[in-house]
Structures are given as C-alpha cells and as structure tokens.
C-alpha cells in the first residue's frame, strides 16, 4: 500500500514516508525523529536537513494535545464539496509539535473550544482510504 490511499484526496503516491499509512492501518499515528540530532518531526520527515542525514526513526504520537486554532469550512474545494461543513484544526502535542487535522464530526461545532484536550486517532474513510482526526481526549 502506498501513500495514495491517505486522506480524502491524495496528491502524492510515492514517498519515503509511505509506511505512515501502514502504521495508520495498525491504529497508530506516527511522527519521525532524526537519529543523529533527535529533532522530532510531524508531519513525518525522512530527511533531516540540519545534519544533513536520512537516518530517522518512527515515533508514535501520544496525546493528549490541545486545540490551538480551527475553522469550519462551508465551501469545500473540488473533491471535498460533499464533505462540507467540516472543521480543520491545528493541535499542540507537546514540545512545540503541531498537528494539522480535522476535528471529528462527533464533536458538535458549538462544543469546540480553544484549548480543549484532543487526541489524534487513525480513521477509515470510504473506499479503503485512511486518515486521522482529532477526537476528545
């Protein structure tokens, strides 16, 4: 399985980070860490330009995080028309690591509050596609 099954619409098929999708299938959301300098990356990055080196390891993202910013999209771009309204968000998951995702539709829009506790959870989308979303922690 390659990266083309990631998300509602994927624009990338080949990447050194394709194992990210395999981890999603196993129920894990993973970031990476440079083995040489220890820098943590999310989204995952298989290369560290500071070293510069490509010796990285996968590290599971554990929560909880907190909500920093969000917006409910009412007008989705091509490919996302039927999804709207949906809420995109950035959450902070410790040591300055930020994650961009959607907030689960199980959380009512009026319940969404800045600073609320979140966890990041792998999900299955229609058509055997995989993604992750924020749920209440």
């Amino acid at each position, binding site marked *: 399985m390659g*990266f083309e099954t990631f998300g*509602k619409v994927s*624009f990338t098929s080949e990447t050194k980070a394709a194992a990210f999708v395999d981890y999603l299938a196993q129920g894990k959301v993973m970031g990476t860490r440079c083995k040489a300098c220890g820098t943590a990356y999310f989204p995952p990055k298989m290369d560290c330009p500071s070293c510069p080196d490509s010796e990285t390891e996968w590290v599971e993202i554990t929560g909880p995080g907190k909500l920093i910013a*969000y917006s409910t999209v009412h*007008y*989705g771009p091509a490919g996302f028309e039927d999804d709207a309204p*949906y809420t995109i968000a950035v959450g902070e998951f410790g040591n300055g690591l*930020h994650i961009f995702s959607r907030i689960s539709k199980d959380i009512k829009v009026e319940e969404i509050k800045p600073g609320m506790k979140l966890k990041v959870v792998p999900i299955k989308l229609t058509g055997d596609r995989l*993604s992750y979303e924020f749920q209440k922690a």
Partner: protein
Amino acid sequence: MDDVAIVGVGQSAFTRKSGVSIRELCFDAFKEAMTGLDLTNKDIDASITCSAPEYDKQRTPSGLISEYLELTPSPAFYIESVCSSSTTGLRVAYSLIKSGLHRVVAVIGFQKMSELSSRDSAERMGRGADIMWEAPFGISMPSGYAMFAQAHMAQFGTTVEQLARVRVKNASYGAKNPKATYRKEVTLEEVLTSAPVATPLKMFDACANADGASCIIVASADVAKKVSKIPIWIAGLGAATDTMSMSGRKSLTSLSCAKDAAAQAYKMAGVKPQDIDVAEVHDCFTISEILAYEDLGFAKPGEGARLVDEKQTYVDGKIPVNVDGGLLSKGHPVGATGGSQMRTIVRQLRGEATEAQVKNAEIGLVHNIGGVGQYGNVVILRR
C-alpha cells in the same frame, strides 16, 4: 538610497470577467505605466513577467508577453510567489538594476482567474498548501486565514464586527476606484449577514478572484531623473518566508514572514512604522488587514482592530491603509496584485490619487503576501 526608482505604474481594470486575453490585459497595464514617460518599449532592457502558473493556460508566459509588448530581444524572466509574485518581481528588478546589468526593467503581473471555475480555483489554492499532509484534509485559502481569525479572536478578543469594519472601510474607497471590481459601499449589516465561507469568515470578509494586469517600470537613478518628472525611490525592501504547512507555524495570530520582511525594509529605509504616511496591505481577507497593522508595527499585537474602530486607517487618519479599496474591493488577480498596490502608493506619493489622496504623502509602504503567509514582501517608497 536614491539608486533605483519607479518611473511608471499602471494597471488594467480589475474585473470578474475581462473578456480579453492575458496579452491584452498586460498591454492595458503597460500603456498606463508608459504614459507621460520619455521612454519607449525599445528602452526597456529587461522584463519580468509574474503570475501564478497553476491558473494559466499559457506556459512560460514571459516569452509571450515580451513578444506582445515588443520587448524582444531583451531578456525576459518569469517570477512566481503566488499572490506576492509581482513584488517579488520588483525585488528582482531592483537587483538587476543595482548590479548594473540593466537600466530599465518592466515588471508585469497578470492573472486571468475567470478561465477557471471558482471551485477549481479553490482546489488550486488548496494545493498551495502542503499537498502531502494538509491538502488531503480539504484545507482552502479562506480556511487557512480563518484559523488565524479564530485564533486572534480567542487570544485578543477581536470581534466579527471589527473584521467587518475593515470591509466597510475598504468598500468606501473601492466605490471611488474606477479600476476596482466592486465599486459599491457596503454596510456592517451586509458583511455580518453574508454567507459563511470558513468560520469565522464570511463571503464579505473575502476578496474575489479577478482578471487583471499591472505594470511597474523600474529604472536606474540617471535614467529616472531624465525620463520622469517625479521619480519614486525604492527606499527599503524586505522579503521573507514561513512554512507552507499550517502545523509548522510558530504563531497563528501573526504572519512572521510579514514581520521579518517589514523589519528588513524599515532598516534599509532608515524609517519607523510611525514615519509611514500611507500604506497598501494585503487584505485578501478582513483578518489579513488586522494582522498587517500589527505585523507592520502600526499597532501593538492584539490591538490592530482598534485602528479601524477609531477610523485611524481612513484617508484622514493616523495611518491611511488601502484607500484604493484594497483587494477586498479591487479583486485579486493573483500575479497582478502587488503591482496594483505599488501603483496606488506611487500615485499617492506623486499626489495623483485624486479619488482619495492622503495629504502631503512622502513615504509609502506596500505589504504583499503570498499564500497563507508563506511569502512576505514589504516595500518602502519615498518621494
């Protein structure tokens, strides 16, 4: 710093649907820029064409525009940094002249947004985000800025009414600008009741896609003094970037690329925010103008909205901003926008902005942003 000057500025009308080709749009801008100059197209020894290519049908448009304006065989370059393409083009023009390689450079920006449906444009704008990690979630340009608006409101108490006041101000000037797409005043009520696009932003908080072109003629000091009655000097330039990804941003209440670019431009020009007489800022959304007030140092962080509450950014206020209607009224033909902002400031500094002239304007500033704060350019001009 009297090394490089702007001698000519022009733009086509910005419209929802121009009904003409990109070459003809560029000609309109070129014609206005050359008006009154003791220069012909034969004197232009390099051209820089600027657009965002994902919206274009023409591949490598610099060759086409250079041919149509009869600028061949002078070299033609192509520059893009999405919405800030034409001020990036200006930075390159400055460098070409300062290096001595060229003496007169035309910076031509264009975009014909009507060639795509609005949803297809939105899809391309979404791909202006990180296509691997963020576009698959359905991020759009409005929702990127909407997250800044939400975070700013949560942190500083900025309100939707304050955002709406930016549109009301800019529409009041757009109504007077014969080249603007929207030439109508709007009420606070109309802004607040417009359809939601990406909360908290509504339809009237957003600028519209448009067709249009702009042109800036840049020249070395010796040429500028000869060919132009009132050369406008490039006193300061700043350019910076921030991450493509929203998750990479350290702050969601400020655009660091704008702050960095502003610091460089102020330093180079030897001026401070309070020395600026008139400014054009990149108000692709109402929140963008509030962020600009703060990032440029016109207001302290979190206090930007007060400037518009107190009408300090109106033409007779402390720091007039977007008194040509801004992107919110003019519309946003991506590659042409920075050039149009430059045109407004040059006209202000020459005292030619009859629709809304700031009295005795001597120092002006342009703030032009690409993407959701990925690229930031700040230009300071002096009469």
